[in-house]
Structures are given as structure tokens and as C-alpha cells.
């Protein structure tokens, strides 16, 4: 199973800044290994962030997003103590969901 995400969510007024680090190789599928064989693609394709059950961001990634992806975004209408849930799905169908409490 994939390693957990690091999610930080901080409120300033009613605006919440969310910063997410995901643990993932983000292999684009175009690189070759030492023997010349293509390394198969393995990257996160879709990221979904929800706040109290409502979607606040959908991100679509390609293999051009750096390894161990970082994502930062802001939404309005949040408050300290609220839950932010982030879920990713990669091209192999692997998925990981983690949550953080708004600080």
C-alpha cells in the first residue's frame, strides 16, 4: 500500500490554505532503465480534495508532475477544526486517502 500523505490545512479568516505532499514515484512511462527497457508508467492521475464532504479541488496530473508531488490550493468557507480529505488515484488504480484537521 502507498505511504501516507502529509496534509496541512491552515485557516486565516474563512480562507483555508491546504498543502499536500504525496508519496509517489510519478514515473512518466518514457524513461529507460540501465538495460534500455522502458520503465512502465506509474503516476497519480487524479486528486480530489473535499471539505466537509464537498469537493473543493480536482487536480488532473500527468507524468510530468515531479516525484513525491506537492500541491497547494486555497478555498473559502472553512474554519478551524473542519476536516479536509484528500484522495488520489494513480494509473494502476492504486489509491490513497488521508485527512487533516484545519488548524
Amino acid at each position, binding site marked *: 500500500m502507498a505511504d*501516507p500523505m*502529509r496534509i496541512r490545512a491552515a485557516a486565516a479568516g474563512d480562507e483555508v490554505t491546504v498543502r499536500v*505532499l504525496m508519496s509517489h514515484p510519478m514515473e512518466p512511462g518514457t524513461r529507460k532503465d540501465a538495460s534500455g527497457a522502458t520503465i512502465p508508467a506509474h503516476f497519480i492521475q487524479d486528486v480530489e480534495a473535499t471539505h466537509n464532504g464537498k469537493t473543493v479541488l480536482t487536480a488532473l496530473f500527468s507524468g510530468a508532475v*515531479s516525484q*513525491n508531488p*506537492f500541491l*497547494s490550493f486555497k478555498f473559502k468557507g472553512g474554519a478551524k477544526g473542519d476536516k479536509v480529505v484528500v484522495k488520489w488515484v494513480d494509473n494502476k488504480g492504486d489509491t490513497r486517502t488521508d485527512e487533516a484537521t484545519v488548524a
Partner: protein
Amino acid sequence: MKRHLLALTAVGAVLAQGQAWAQDATAEGIAKYREMLEDGNPAELFEMKGEELWAQKRGPKNATLEQCDLGLGPGVLKGAFVQMPRYFKDTGRVQDLESRLLTCMETLQGFNAEEIRKTPFRRGEMANLTALATYVAAQSKGMRFNLPQAHPQEKLMYEAGKRIFFTRGGTHDFSCASCHGADDKRIRLQDLPNLTKNPGDGIGFAAWPAYRVSNSQMWGMQLRLNDCFRQQRFPEPKFGSDATIALGVYMGVNAKTAESIVPAIKR
């Protein structure tokens, strides 16, 4: 060559303004790039993993590492990193953070230390060891280096470390000092800390373990030194060997009062 041509077209405009100016602009641009990377350092992922591993019952003895003594007493993490490498009575050796953690994995959890020592970096328990080192080191973030030098073994390791630092060998006659013996030098665009003295807060010894963006890997000081020796065209230093620890003592003592920014993010 391809890269050379690219650089030629891409920076032609800048160079037209004069070399000195271009160098300043380059240095400034790179400083800005590094600053932008600070926010969202993936080292945090390894720190988190290390935190989990620290408190997890693992190994043949199904025990946690919470009783591990890193020099300040069992389970004391805060401040331990900035006083390592140091002498440990129970092993009779001066140990750095990584070799000490391995001792704890062996004595408390029952892991086979010899086997782990031979595991390539970033594999299996060696990867776990790096994550643990990242977590433990991060507990001293913002604290200042102050290695003990009271024990004769600690002094010996400093003196040996100094000698190893200046040892020239290999196909290229390099020593550590070839790159890290003077102020304000660079390899390509990479600034080189002068490690014969305190190079400043968060520089050199005070910046590892660090996440390396060039290969998306988490490196502890053991791997940092391993790769230095590779580039030096030396044979490979064994994991946790006295030469690596002696160098740690030499750099760590020289870095006295430098602030740790570990875990850092590096090129």
C-alpha cells in the same frame, strides 16, 4: 553538447549584458529557485514515516524504539542529533545518528545489524533507517550543534577525521578538502561549503539528512558521504564505518554553534 547549445541560445541575451552581471543574475535566480522549493519539502514524508516506525512494534523482538538511547537518555530525542556523533559506553564506540539507530534496532528490536549494514541505500530496512534518522534529526530543528569532545575516543575521532578529510587519493588525487577546503567556491553552479570551519547555519553538516530534488531521494549523512567518496573516485566506505564517523565528528565539531535546519531540501 546538446545542453551546451541550449544554454547558448537560452542565455545569449543575458550574456550580452556582461559576464559579471550574468553571474549575479544566475546566482540570484538560483537562490530564488531554492527559496521556492522550501515550501513543501518532501522530506516531511520521510519524517512522518520515521515517526511511525519509531513507535511501531517491529523486528524479531516485536518492540518499539522508544527506549533507544541516543546519548541523552532512553527515548530522549530533542537535542540528541546536534550532539552526535558521540561516544557510547554500551558499545564502546563513537557513533553517528544512523549507526546508533542501527544499534537500537539490533538490541531493542532484534534486527540483524550486519545484514542491514550491507543492504543498499533506499532498500528494505536501510530505507527505514533513513526515515528514522530523518525523524530523529528533525526533533532538533533550530537547535545548535555542540558535539561533546570530553572522551578520548571523541578526540581521537576528531583528529582522525581531520586527517581523512585531507587524504588525497584515487585516480583524480581528490580529498574532501579539494572541494570543501576554502570559502566561496563552486562546482558548476553548486556552492561548496568550507567544512574546515563552521560554514554557517543550516549549511554543510547542519543540513543533512536532506531531500535531494535531483533524484527525489532522502539522503542521510552516511549516503551523503558515500556519494562524495564515489565522486572522489575512492573505493566505497562501509556503512557506519569509523572513517565516516570520524568525518562526522570533524565536520560536526567544526560546525559548533551552527543551527540545524534538518531535514533540508537540496539540489
